[in-house]
């Protein structure tokens, strides 16, 4: 077989596919995420000029990213002026396939494992679910809902782009600031958060918070 001398043959490559939702990068579930980031960097570098900017989707399968991993991915894509417009466009087989409500058809759910810390900001077109806390100084921005399965103490902006139906749910809701669509609300000074989950949504022209 003819192999050009400069081209290593054994390197694993990431797959890009053109789905109907848009160009999608598939990150396999095997190997560490950091491993694939290196592969991606090399691959984009070789394809320089081909990928000039633009927005892609990223399919992660069952993989959950830490805030640091997501930041790493964005950093590499930014080098090639590529933006992430959504995650997980492929409808997954559910373990428990009930034909109930469908997930929002938009760009799927971004699932974050671990605490979103001071100085970390995550943006996503779709819903964000955090399996951890959102700490003061941390920021979440979603065009859909935001769900924090821990304490929400930072800044959350749901319905970014104008969806007034968006909701913010947290197990402990003690935010610095909430924002849904175009409406702001500052938490009353010293609000510690109820014990138990609460939901914030727009009622009239105001954000209200209720026990879930």
């Amino acid at each position: 077989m003819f192999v050009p001398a400069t081209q290593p043959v054994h390197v694993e490559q990431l797959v890009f596919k053109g789905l109907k939702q848009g160009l999608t990068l598939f990150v396999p579930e095997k190997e560490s995420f950091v491993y694939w980031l290196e592969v991606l960097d090399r691959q984009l570098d070789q394809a320089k000029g081909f990928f000039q900017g633009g927005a892609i989707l990223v399919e992660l399968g069952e993989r959950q990213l830490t805030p640091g991993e997501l930041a790493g991915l964005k950093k590499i894509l930014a080098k090639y002026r590529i933006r992430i417009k959504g995650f997980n466009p492929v409808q997954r087989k559910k373990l428990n396939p009930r034909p109930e409500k469908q997930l929002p058809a938009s760009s799927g759910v971004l699932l974050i494992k671990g605490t979103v810390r001071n100085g970390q900001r995550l943006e996503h077109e779709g819903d964000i679910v955090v399996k951890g806390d959102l700490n003061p100084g941390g920021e979440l921005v979603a065009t859909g809902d935001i769900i924090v399965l821990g304490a929400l103490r930072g800044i959350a902006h749901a319905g970014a782009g104008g969806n007034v139906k968006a909701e913010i749910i947290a197990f402990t809701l003690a935010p610095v600031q909430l924002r849904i669509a175009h409406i702001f609300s500052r938490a009353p000074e010293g609000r510690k958060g109820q014990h138990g989950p609460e939901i914030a949504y727009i009622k009239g022209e105001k954000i209200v918070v209720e026990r879930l």
Partner: protein
Amino acid sequence: MAGRVIVVTSGKGGVGKTTTVANIGTGLALRHKKVVMIDADIGLRNLDVVMGLENRIIYDLVDVAEKTCRSVHKALIKDKRLSNLFLLPAAQTRNKDAISPEQMVAIVDELKEEFDYILVDCPAGIERGFDNAVAAATEAIVVTTPEVSAVRDADRIIGLLQDKEIYDPVLILNRLRPDMVRKGDMMDVDDINDILAIKLLGIVPDDEEIIISTNKGEPAVLNNHSKAGEAFRNIVRRMEGEEVPFMSVNGEPGLFGRFLKLLNGK
């Protein structure tokens, strides 16, 4: 087997990083580990002063990076008291960008095979100095005091450590004052754990012995009567894999405290 490379960092300045490195380094050496402490705080070095080694410096970290001295070993200063403890001092008349993260990695690589522990004293802040100090580390100790601003900075640092692929930093809570905690005037361990949610390595009480020992150039861990010294001895034991219980409000259980507890039948 290669040694453990641990960076001691905080974000906020003046919370006790240098004190921690000096005490842990000395404490590990007391347990017959071969230890090197690297002062990465270029331009604001003071680990040498805290260790009482200032007058022995000939070469420093920048000299090693720039190969002004023949090998890294030429720049290592042996401790006065313990022959298995060494200091690689920072340069005082240069800036943080006098070395690069790559140079730091190369220097640490040279030391790794020979030492059980390589402790890096990180400068305050999140810029170049932090990048240098963290570059070669595979573990991190985050130091904070029980103040909201220090805890916020610690949280920020934990996020930045993730970006550097250090995922499980451990926490030292320094300068806790049991009397203030009891009165509700100071954050306690639970409040801090609530935010940072990382493993606690130790609680060091606010102790004037630290100031006295710093001035003498003799780490408190050598002093059997210092409460902070005892806390650092416990920290060292935990680093070595021992299970040592914590006392949340009263800081680490001191000898005297234990005695009182016995007397009071608790």
